């Protein structure tokens, strides 16, 4: 602190010493508040792990949990035909690694029981006379029943099942035509850009990072001022000559630093542990993040000026956090939401930042690509901070 104070000592003599002294004093007040805040944060040994360790652990653990990739389809086969053809079809299902044939059964009721208890995802029913129909009438049908409570997973499982049956069809055709492979006339080639392995972690880790940084910023700042209110210590600051803006800066800066520090740490982990590419510029990410954090801290501070107890502050912060997180496109794509829900996202800072960080990290988007969401965040930061400072009263309520 001593050294910092020296830093602001008047060193020039072409400025009037009075203004210079005043400016130094203003800065010093902010520095004192900062010092107090940092001390308060770091002496609370119980809170430190919550602020620093839990986010890291969550990033490391949860990144593995978030995947829509279907690796495991438990299948029950009801083969009522017991013919060569039906067994050939069944063996087709045994081949791919994501299909696990859970059970063979003769009755549909028994198979349905497995679906009910959740032990199986899919039932394949091969009816009696399957082979006969195939040979005599050249067409037969099978039934594929999928547990569709999770609709999008069911659609994919159904598509897998269908493609295996199509393969079987193809095999028959090849057999009939005497070993000539008949290619479908339209040749479709796929390429998946930016993430050829379709790895989920690549997509989710940047999003989770945003989430952790946001929670730290929003919750800690919203609780902080209310805590002083509840404890009564805010009165002492109210009667002190500390100005509103000095107080607000002193309160917010520590969390701003902590959150940025965690973002940097998280990005390092993402790079080292998850091998996630950072195609765009790091400076751009941090630049956007520092403005974004002003917005979240502003919201947190605004909440704290609206309430009297930590409990209320927490509920409000929780409400906004959950709504913002769930609507942000972190877990479910924003494009799948109905129009009105996408409109709500106009006021959702998390949605903007998640979009930006994913674009910059995964696709290497430049500043002009993210200009619109960035401006939105900037407006957000200005509005929430102004509102918060305006709402904050230096009088007892």
């Amino acid at each position, binding site marked *: 602190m001593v050294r910092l104070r020296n830093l602001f000592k008047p060193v020039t003599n072409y400025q009037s010493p009075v203004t210079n002294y005043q400016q130094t004093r203003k800065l010093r007040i902010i520095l004192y508040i900062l010092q107090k805040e940092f001390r308060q944060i770091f002496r609370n040994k119980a809170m430190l792990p919550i602020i620093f360790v839990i986010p890291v652990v969550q990033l490391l653990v*949860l990144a593995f949990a978030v995947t829509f990739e279907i690796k495991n389809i438990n299948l029950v086969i009801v083969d009522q035909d017991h013919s060569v053809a039906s067994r050939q079809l069944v063996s087709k299902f045994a081949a791919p690694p994501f299909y696990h044939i859970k059970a063979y059964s003769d009755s549909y009721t028994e198979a349905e029981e497995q679906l009910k208890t959740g032990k199986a995802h899919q039932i394949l029913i091969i009816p009696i006379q399957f082979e006969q129909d195939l040979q005599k009438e050249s067409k037969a049908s099978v039934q594929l029943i999928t547990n569709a409570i999770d609709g999008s997973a069911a659609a994919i499982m159904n598509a897998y099942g269908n493609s295996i049956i199509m393969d079987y069809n193809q095999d028959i055709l090849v057999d009939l035509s005497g070993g000539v492979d008949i290619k479908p006339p339209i040749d*479709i080639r796929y390429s998946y850009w930016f993430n050829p392995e379709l790895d989920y972690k690549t997509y989710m880790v940047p999003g989770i990072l945003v989430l952790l940084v946001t929670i730290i910023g929003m919750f800690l700042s919203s609780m902080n001022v209310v805590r002083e209110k509840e404890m009564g210590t805010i009165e002492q600051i109210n009667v002190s000559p500390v100005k509103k803006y000095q107080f607000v800066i002193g309160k917010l800066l520590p969390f701003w630093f902590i959150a940025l520090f965690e973002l940097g740490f998280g990005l390092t982990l993402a790079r080292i542990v998850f091998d996630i590419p950072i195609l765009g510029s790091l400076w751009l990410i941090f630049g956007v993040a520092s403005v974004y954090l002003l917005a979240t801290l502003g919201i947190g501070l605004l909440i704290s000026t609206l309430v009297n107890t930590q409990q209320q502050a927490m509920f409000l912060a929780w409400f906004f956090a959950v709504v913002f997180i769930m609507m942000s496109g972190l877990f479910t794509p924003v494009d799948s939401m109905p129009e009105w829900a996408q409109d709500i996202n106009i006021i959702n800072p998390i949605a903007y930042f998640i979009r930006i960080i994913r674009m910059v990290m995964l696709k290497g988007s*430049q500043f002009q690509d993210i200009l619109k969401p960035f401006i939105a965040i900037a407006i957000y930061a200005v509005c929430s901070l102004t509102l918060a400072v305006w709402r904050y009263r230096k009088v007892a309520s």
Partner: protein
Amino acid sequence: MRGFIIKEFYHIFRDIRSMVVLFGMPVIQVLLFGFALSTEVKNAPVAIIDYSNDQVTRAITTKLLSSGFFILSDQVPGEGHIEEVFRHGKVKEVIVFESDFAAKLEKDRQAGIQIIADASDPNTANLVVSYTSAIIGDYQQEYLKGMSLPVTVRTESQMMYNPALKSVFMFVPGVITILLMLITAMMTSISIARENELGTMEILLVSPMRPIQIIAGKVLPYVLLAFTNALIILLLSYFVLGMPVKGSLLLLLAESLLFIVMALSLGIFISTVSNSQQMAMMLSMFALMLPTILLSGFIFPIENMPVPLQIFSNIMPPRWFIIIVKSIMIKGLGFQYIWKETLIIAGMALFFIALSIKKFRIRLE
């Protein structure tokens, strides 16, 4: 004891702001998430580069755009500018038809289409590509009709429990669970930590009441509150979101009550290990929220996770409750199918209660 419970009620109900938050929040969240959360792909912007622009490629394009999955983006990237379009954000997929498509198809019986997806969102990319190839496959089938295939196995697909593949069926049970869990655990943990922090706990401790009575008195009003919340949420999901209740409503309510008691005991436990409201809150929010959302099978199916996480998810109470809710509401199953899950939740409740009675400090530091 009665006086104590009445005191707690006063504490809760005199604070209008908290009441609005407690009852208004779940309502808004259920409605919002019930309608908004979905993993379906609809109206995905797609850019088409058509080098031949003949009747076949136009027919395929029309077929794609009339499916409801895609809308045509006004951005048409030139050669080598595809990456730029992706970087800008909106477009999910670029389809490239090679030149002389129809002619090649006629003459060589072989023509090529290239599908390039923006896989920075793997799930959307996967769905978009599989829809596209299914639609092109359909067209191919029509095209081949003249020379129909000699032998075919037809598949009749049936989607059990959710024929329309509505996302609501997946998300509403999860939303119910998460709201009950977080609100309840949070409310109790904060309320006890608050008495600790304000020093009023001291007064309770010197009273002739035993710790268990203090805890019971603290918890009872919250049981009622949370149960009312559960009722509101269920009513909304039935009437507004169109969730079915195929099984017994009574069973569903009883299970909800059990789950609430479990969440409350977890809340008490949190409050006994934290020394301030702030810490209680950070624990019940931060430590609980993400795992509850992510490791419970609410959005991401548990069986797709790595094995250690699957094992870990067993200790997440919401995981079991989501199974119960889905079984009763959507599958219409009876108690004999969910007794195991019920037993697990009951066990967890007992565990947390026992732990917090043991940890409950009757002395001040």
